[in-house]
């Protein structure tokens, strides 16, 4: 059901999102909004709850309270797969790939699911040339084409990271959550990630968790700062860079000396 | 009315004795499964081994009963360390199928070896004279040996609970069960801990097999025949706990005795159905933790 509200609906929205493990509260009352077409970054010190937030939004984790909306539709009770069908895609902080399968097939599985062909029983997967070729084109975009036939586990970690992104892109999402996409990627390859992100469709809403500040300031139009499970502040890169609270949180005791 | 009461007492008594045996054998399995994450279907082999060693010492070498039992438990516990370090260790963190097949292989080999050495029939087990016979409480006859089993079981349970809760070693084990990697990074020697806990578990199983030989007779197919009951105790109780298997064993022991007494035409069917229901309601067992196994 569409929430009562004026103006455009957001690509992604959470209201009073909460998560506790027993007595330990990891996400506090998070009100978050991601607009269509935005390029937003989520930053914060380690353990701030950023990945937990992504897990809650994607459905990998069930919240203790609050609501989640995708394009205005409430998805709080939906399973992960259903949220994906509504246009949400995510990458994992640690590579979560089909290690025994080829790079090409990893992406084919994603594209197949998107096209609704994932559950077909009666014709071979190989007959879907459209799926395979779309997957290959995607790999070309990410400079992975030469490894298309190799099992993922044979690739160096950094290139596996690119496969992680390829899978998410294969889902042609409307909301894309990238959890530290550049982590582990050698600097020679990280240029591709920037290229890919910059060439994403204009109406796609992107939320990227990153520690690499150069990447963040280059790509993000808006930054959200999360500390200990709550949002500290939000704003443009310049505002955030100037915000003394942010500096304090990051530099901590050094700033107080 | 007197008939009902009598039946209830009888079921409670024999059920508890059975439960104690099940507990002694299964508690080690619960802890090692929770600690090493290893599906050890061959756990019953150690119980049977305890039974065989004890009966051999008792019958062939005239070793007094208490010594035979203790020696059996210690011997099996120590021998199992060898097996753990050479064989089991390779499969920690491995595929479930590998662990299942490896332990099935051990079961098969043990059945063949037992049949070869001791023959296919049950090992005779005669409790010593001071533990035989009956004694009288409030006009009812209670078999002495089974009372002894209950008492011995209660002592072991208490020692285990205290040991796990109060000692540093117990704390280390609990920590490692809860989060293995974390425990390692805090400096706990998980490798030595595993071997020790494995030996403790198999030693207890051997104790259970030896003491319980009167209820669960020792024969070559022991480990396979009773496997399902040991697994039920562990699964229903919850992995990696000491409390869990106790309550599960009591539940299983008493209901099994009750069903076999009241509805013998159905055999163990109700036990399995009960297990199914419990596992559906609590997939991690009654006392299972949500932590990593």
């Amino acid at each position, binding site marked *: 059901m569409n929430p009562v509200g004026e103006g455009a609906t957001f690509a992604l929205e959470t209201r009073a999102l909460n998560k506790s493990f027993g007595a330990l509260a990891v996400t506090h009352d998070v009100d978050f909004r991601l607009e269509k077409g935005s390029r937003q970054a989520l930053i914060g010190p380690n353990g701030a709850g950023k990945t937990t937030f992504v897990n809650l939004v994607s459905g990998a984790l069930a919240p203790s309270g609050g609501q989640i909306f995708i394009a205005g539709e409430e998805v709080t009770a939906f399973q992960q797969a259903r949220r994906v069908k509504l246009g949400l895609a995510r990458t994992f902080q640690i590579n979560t790939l089909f290690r025994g399968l080829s790079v090409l097939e990893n992406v084919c599985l994603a594209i197949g699911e998107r096209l609704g062909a994932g559950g077909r*029983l009666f014709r071979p997967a190989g007959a879907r040339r459209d799926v395979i070729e779309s997957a290959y084109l995607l790999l070309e975009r990410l400079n992975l084409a030469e490894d298309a036939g190799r099992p993922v586990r044979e690739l160096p970690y950094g290139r596996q990271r690119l496969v992680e992104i390829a899978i998410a892109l294969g889902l042609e999402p409307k909301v894309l959550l990238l959890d530290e996409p550049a982590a582990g990627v050698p600097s020679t390859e990280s240029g591709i990630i920037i290229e890919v992100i910059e060439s994403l469709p204009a109406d796609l809403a992107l939320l990227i968790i990153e520690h690499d500040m150069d990447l963040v300031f280059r790509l993000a139009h808006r930054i959200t700062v999360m500390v200990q499970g709550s949002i500290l502040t939000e704003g443009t890169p310049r505002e955030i860079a100037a915000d003394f609270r942010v500096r304090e949180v990051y530099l901590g005791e050094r700033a107080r000396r | 009315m007197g008939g009902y009461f009598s039946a209830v007492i009888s079921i409670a008594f024999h059920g508890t004795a059975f439960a104690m045996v099940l507990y002694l054998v299964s508690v080690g399995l619960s802890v090692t499964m929770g600690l090493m994450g290893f599906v050890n279907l061959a756990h019953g082999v150690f119980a049977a081994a305890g039974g065989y060693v004890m009966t051999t010492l008792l019958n062939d070498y005239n070793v007094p009963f208490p010594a035979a039992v203790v020696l059996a438990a210690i011997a099996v516990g120590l021998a199992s360390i060898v097996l753990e370090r050479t064989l089991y260790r390779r499969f920690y963190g491995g595929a479930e199928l590998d662990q299942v097949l490896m332990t099935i292989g051990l079961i098969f080999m043990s059945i063949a070896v037992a049949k070869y050495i001791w023959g296919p029939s049950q090992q005779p087990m005669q409790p010593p004279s001071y533990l035989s016979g009956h004694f009288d409480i409030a006009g009812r006859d209670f078999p002495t040996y089974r009372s002894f089993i209950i008492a011995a079981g209660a002592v072991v349970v208490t020692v285990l609970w205290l040991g796990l809760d109060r000692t540093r070693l117990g704390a280390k084990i609990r920590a490692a069960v809860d989060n293995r990697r974390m425990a390692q990074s805090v400096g706990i020697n998980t490798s030595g801990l595993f071997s020790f806990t494995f030996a403790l578990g198999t030693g207890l199983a051997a104790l259970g097999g030896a003491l319980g030989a009167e209820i669960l007779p020792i024969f070559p197919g022991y480990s396979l025949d009773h496997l399902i009951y040991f697994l039920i105790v562990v699964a229903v109780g919850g992995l990696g706990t000491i409390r869990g298997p106790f309550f599960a064993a009591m539940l299983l022991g008493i209901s099994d005795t009750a069903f076999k007494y009241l509805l013998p035409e159905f055999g163990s069917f109700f036990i399995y159905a009960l297990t199914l229901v419990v596992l559906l309601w609590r997939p991690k067992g009654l006392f299972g933790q949500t932590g990593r196994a």
Partner: protein
Amino acid sequence: MTDASQRETLLARKLAAAPPAPSSPAVLALSRRHRFRPLEALPWIAAAFGFFAFPDYLSLGAQVFITILFALSADLIIGYTGIVTLGQAAFFGTGAYTCGILAAHGWTEPLSLLIFGTAAGALVGFLSGFVVLRTQGLTQLMLTLIVAIMLQEGANKATDLTGGANGLQGMEIAPILGLFNFDLFGRVAYLYCLAILFLGWLALRMIVHSPFGRSLTGIRESEARMHAIGSPVFRRRLLAYTISAAVAGAAGVLLAETTQVVALDALGFDRSGGVLIMLIIGGVGRLYGAFVGVPLYMIAQDRLAQQDPIYWYFWIGLFLLLIVLFARGGVLGLIDKLRRRWVR
């Protein structure tokens, strides 16, 4: 760095690349993987050869085919979907007893019995899968075992229906299609079981190469990833479990029809455990592992168990340990390794 110009170049590249299709070797390999290869005819040629070359062993041959079909059903769920089950015999026995009970009550037409038994297996698979697949780890393993043991205990006690510990014996089975009577030499049994095995294999091969089958492998490799690409994991697993149970049920019916005896061992742990061993010997998750592992196991069992059952238990136990330690991929895995060494 504008969005528009970047996307235009991307589009241009796509158009340039699209027709003719990119003939990358990876793309070609993936699109051709399901094609029949000449080597796949080998088992069937061997079976045809066996019919003429070993006329005294046709009954044994039929049993081998039945066991291969059963092993294929197990491989779908264990090898491809990654669910270890200790109770696959539950479905096999369901099929066998369904056939036996119906036959004992006068329904003797074999092909319809086959359909009923397969359907019964599928039903039991679906119902138990609904329950079992919601759990994981030891609990799941246990539940697979419990389902089989419950059925076995039920069959043991429902003596009126199932013959209890003695089982059902001497059932009459009508001739197949009204023409082919089960003869003493096992000729009809051999060809009948071969035909059903062929159909079953064809169906499983199709399933394994389908998008559904590939998604099962995905679920096995990374369940988390499958959820994250929108795959209905539970539904897929349940369907795989049900199909596997159906095929196992079919194999059970064949056993009942060819031996005209159904006993408790159709549901027993020996059968469930045995099929695991056969698969690991041949190679798990490879479709052809069953074709290799089953005959090897059954021949070995025939030879060794005759001498002394004790020897059999010991050697198969030892063999199992050695395989799991040193030759995890089974015979087919070893062949693969040798092939790779040769290529280099």
